[in-house]
């Protein structure tokens, strides 16, 4: 509270271009400990806009004009609010307060630690048990006679940034694990990410070896042997280094690098060439700038898009996932994936591979599980990457944004293959940044445990699950061919496009705004209702049949289709 210089300013003009607003609305601005709140003066609507302080990525003050001074709030979900304050003094206060409020210094300042939805302690605990990774490993058929759960990392003794529960080949003894961990950057030894039951091949992940130019480690070599032997169908494994080969080579000078094929028998090294977090950060900024252009020509836009390099990076990540998925599903060969530390590009490549390999991860619950496993549990540095606290700006990078976008690009290519819709992806993206829930706080499992987040915050997953009706893709059918088996996307450049729904809120079509998805969801819901009604042989409720508000269709359908209706209907009734 001490950071709020002025809690309330009247006669403020707010312009929210992102929601298609063209004229500023007048109202009162409030600053609370957690939110900036704007309440419209218009007595009929009294519309409220709430912006969480942790969603603000930058606060900018523009030079004073006669009508007042302006503050521009840029948010992490790419929304932009322009606030015009009549008095320069007030504006200065608002600006100073927001600059401080949007850059919390301690976790305790974050919203999730004060956010108190109306639930009791038991319910909160239950909210954390919603997500059960052991169940997911079980679903993959683990443990089995090839892969077992290891206790090596209980209490995070071997690797601080890894989860305590990990799966390794049965033949990987604790000495091998510990030895391998010593030879891997930050102790991130090879562990299982996904096991493909059909081919018995696995996707494993780790960090780069500390090989330098000539270093080797017996245990690490034994570890990779064990990975290979855990797949009876193949006599080699792929080692996928997701970095550009040049970067990997440069790392050797620093005593790191990549596996020497002379020392490891039966590995095939493959470089993918995903750029590092610094390249991605500046690339995303360029895409945001493209999205913010007011009246660009087609040339400006396409040039800006090309120049940002963003889609090129998205394609590289999808290509990495596709390479892994093909190796596992088509060749039946296990893959070990790493980059430098094994928590950014590795997480991207592994999780994309899982989405392609297993239809389960294309469901609402499955995607949550996947993010929990490959990102949250495996120590992706959420708080650093997404700037939860005021810190080193060079640590910030849109790593998971890119994964979420890969999923979106896939869903554009396979409209019937995913149970969730774009809204779900955007909601996940928002919550990764919002700090409203404890799920994405901190940088690894150990940190979250030490902060006792399970007792002090809530989990986001059950909240999203409760809202699943609005996140459901009406075209999804589990039994359909597109939804089953391995997804084989085309990654030719023309298959990619800019994700308008995330980056550009500026251009929304004017009414009648039309969403076929909403329409189809209604259709689907009603069909289910009707089916149930028919099954129960209940009377149609008097007055209004439930389909009446969509009833135009009956007048409109052609006569022969009408005949179909009748035919189909009488069958149902029999």
């Amino acid at each position, binding site marked *: 509270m001490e950071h709020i210089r002025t809690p309330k300013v009247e006669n403020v003009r707010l312009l929210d271009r992102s929601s298609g607003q063209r004229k500023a609305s007048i109202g009162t601005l409030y600053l609370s400990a957690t939110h900036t709140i704007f309440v419209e003066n218009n007595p009929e609507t009294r519309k409220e806009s709430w912006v969480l302080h942790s969603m603000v990525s930058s606060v900018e003050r523009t030079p004073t004009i006669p009508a007042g001074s302006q503050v521009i709030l840029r948010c992490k979900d790419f929304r932009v609010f322009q606030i015009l304050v009549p008095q320069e003094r007030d504006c200065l206060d608002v600006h100073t307060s927001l600059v401080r409020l949007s850059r919390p210094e301690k976790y305790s300042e974050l919203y999730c630690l004060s956010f108190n939805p109306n639930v009791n302690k038991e319910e909160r605990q239950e909210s954390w048990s919603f997500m059960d990774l052991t169940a997911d490993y079980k679903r993959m058929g683990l443990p089995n006679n090839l892969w077992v759960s290891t206790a090596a990392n209980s209490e995070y003794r071997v690797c601080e940034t890894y989860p305590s529960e990990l799966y390794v080949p049965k033949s990987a003894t604790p000495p091998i694990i510990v030895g391998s961990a010593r030879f891997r950057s930050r102790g991130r030894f090879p562990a299982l990410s996904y096991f493909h039951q059909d081919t018995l091949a696995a996707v494993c992940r780790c960090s780069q070896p500390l090989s330098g130019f000539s270093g080797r480690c017996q245990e690490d070599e034994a570890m990779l042997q064990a990975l290979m032997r855990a797949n009876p169908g193949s006599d080699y494994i792929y080692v996928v280094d997701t970095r550009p080969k040049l970067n990997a080579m440069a790392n050797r000078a620093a005593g790191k690098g990549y596996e020497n094929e002379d020392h490891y028998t039966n590995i095939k090294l493959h470089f993918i060439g995903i750029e590092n977090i610094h390249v991605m950060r500046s690339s995303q900024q360029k895409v945001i700038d493209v999205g913010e252009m007011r009246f660009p*020509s*087609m*040339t400006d*836009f*396409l*040039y800006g898009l*090309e120049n940002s*390099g963003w*889609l*090129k990076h998205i*394609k590289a990540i999808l290509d990495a996932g596709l390479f892994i998925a093909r190796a596992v599903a088509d060749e039946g060969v296990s893959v070990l994936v790493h980059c430098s530390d094994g928590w950014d590009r590795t997480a991207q490549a592994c999780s994309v591979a899982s989405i392609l390999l297993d239809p389960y991860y294309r469901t609402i619950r499955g995607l949550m599980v996947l993010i929990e496993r490959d990102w949250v549990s495996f120590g992706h540095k959420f708080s650093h990457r997404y700037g939860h606290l005021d810190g080193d700006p060079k640590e910030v990078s849109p790593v998971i944004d890119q994964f979420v976008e890969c999923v979106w690009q896939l869903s554009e*290519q396979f*409209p019937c293959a995913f149970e969730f819709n774009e809204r779900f992806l955007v909601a996940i993206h928002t919550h990764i940044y919002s700090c409203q829930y404890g799920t994405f706080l901190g940088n690894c499992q150990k940190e979250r445990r030490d902060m006792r987040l399970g007792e002090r915050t809530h989990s986001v997953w059950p909240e999203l699950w409760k809202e699943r009706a609005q996140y459901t893709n*009406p*075209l999804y*059918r589990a039994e*359909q061919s*597109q939804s089953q088996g391995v997804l084989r996307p*085309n990654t*030719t*450049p*023309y298959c*990619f*496009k800019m994700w*308008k729904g995330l980056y*550009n809120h*500026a*251009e929304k*079509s*004017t009414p*009648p705004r*039309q*969403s*076929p998805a909403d*329409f*189809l969801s209604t*259709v*689907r819901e*009603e*069909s289910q209702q*009707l*089916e149930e*009604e*028919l099954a129960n042989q209940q009377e149609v409720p008097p007055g209004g*049949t439930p*389909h009446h508000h969509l*009833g*135009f269709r*009956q007048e*409109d359908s*052609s*006569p*022969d*289709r009408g005949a179909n*209706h009748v035919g*189909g*209907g*009488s069958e*149902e*009734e029999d």
Partner: protein
Amino acid sequence: MEFSEYIKTANVEDVVLRQPLHPPGRGTLCITGHHLLFSDREEGSCRQVLLLLRNIDAIEKSVENLLTCSGLFSNAGLSQRLSGSSGTITIKCKDLRVLQLDIPGMEECLNIARSIETLSCLDSMSELYPFFYRPSNASLWDQWGLLSLERHYSQMKELHDRWRLSTVNRDFSVCPSYPQAVIVPKSTDDDMLEKVAKFRQGGRFPVLCYYHKKNGMVIMRSSQPLTGANRKRCREDEQLLQAVIDGSDKGYIIDTRSSQQALQARMTGGGLESKSCYSSWKRLQRQMERGKALQESLIKLVEACRDESNNMDRWLSKLENSKWLSHVQTALSTAGLLAECVERDGHSVLVHGSEGTDSTLLISTLAQLIMDPSCRTLEGFLTLLEREWVQAGHPFQQRCAHSAHSHARLQQESPVFLLLLDCVWQLWRQFPLALGFSEALLLRLATEAYASDYGTFLGNNQQERCTLGVKENTHCLFQALLRPRERDCYSNPLYEHTELAIWPSVHPQSLQLWRGFFLRWTPQTHHLEEAQEEIRNMVIEWGKLALSSCPAST
């Protein structure tokens, strides 16, 4: 048939056909006066591929010695001829499909190639396939066309006060590219029209093309005035336009050329309406690409879609460089401007470029789709196309002679109609519930405009069609598209009538490459088609349930 002289080899056995989305097949190839017929001889399949020769844009042939070539089936060793040679013909179609034929025997291959080259671009229109097409489910006595201008006029009661139907062009002598009947202001008599026609390029005097019922404002279209270098005037032309405004304060002229282009046109006898002579009209210049530039844009785009370098930067820069999407953007925003003048500002508008047969029709059609709900049904849209493109004299024969693959020297080719379909697709994508027809219809029309069994797009104008006896001797595409089975496939299951105007967004992010057309022969498109199919099924299923749950209503 005299075609036989062009066919030296009519049948070849053991031909291998490779086509997108299908495994290669081996079978017999036949060539007839109008078709290429391939029948698969593989066991268990009896696939036939029938390709209209007119659909072939370009072919490439290569002949090689079989001894050094190891084709797909060479292991089978079934068909190697003693001559020891074979050839390959790559066929590039106007619908952007690319097929490949491996033909045993060099001579046969060259004969087939020669026949294709000749027969795919016959000059004489009366020899084209529509004059031979006789489907069993239709008769030449069936109604031809959807709505004549006479009937259109008589149905539009609100027109009758101020507008009349003129048959001054009944023998096509006043304007060869206009239909026999046109709608003009009541106060202008036929003598005046004849004079005005002499003042407009190609005789295309201003005629009514759209009446906005909400406010009585209209869209007129014409060609450029022939003012020339010495700024000739034509009183009758000025009077005609004054009669269009009739009492309201002003009207707009949307000229689809840049100011400079319009001024330059004076040097060659054309020109523009000067402020001093047309004081109640405000001219807006909006440059739209036409002719050769548009054709080159299409060629570049299709080439970019075929690029297999798999390089994102290169793709985006080629896409930008083709300028196709810029043309889509310009067309939609100019049409939006036109609709805004009429619907929001409440003023009448005259549209023209130079000839008034291309970009003029493009934006008047799009503006009508934006404003008028009755054009957005399947039938309404086809009627609109019939009126604004077929009857209004878009020179289909010249514009669609070749598509993106042809190496022939370009003459009058220009994909204006394709650009229209692309723009309509953008509308359809932005307003998925507002249009009564499906993407499949747009794709079908894109194919039919270039090569068709039907007579609808034959010739360049009504006069040519009359001379050829198109009405009497061919079948009508629009009628065929409205038959019950076709109607099912070409209607939009999500369609919901709305009275509101549908204002498209022309922001570059809102405009997309029309994958359904440009990437039609790739597997992606197949996944998208599946989704459309799913939507159709869902809505049908829902309709069935709704009906069976309330039997009382039937």
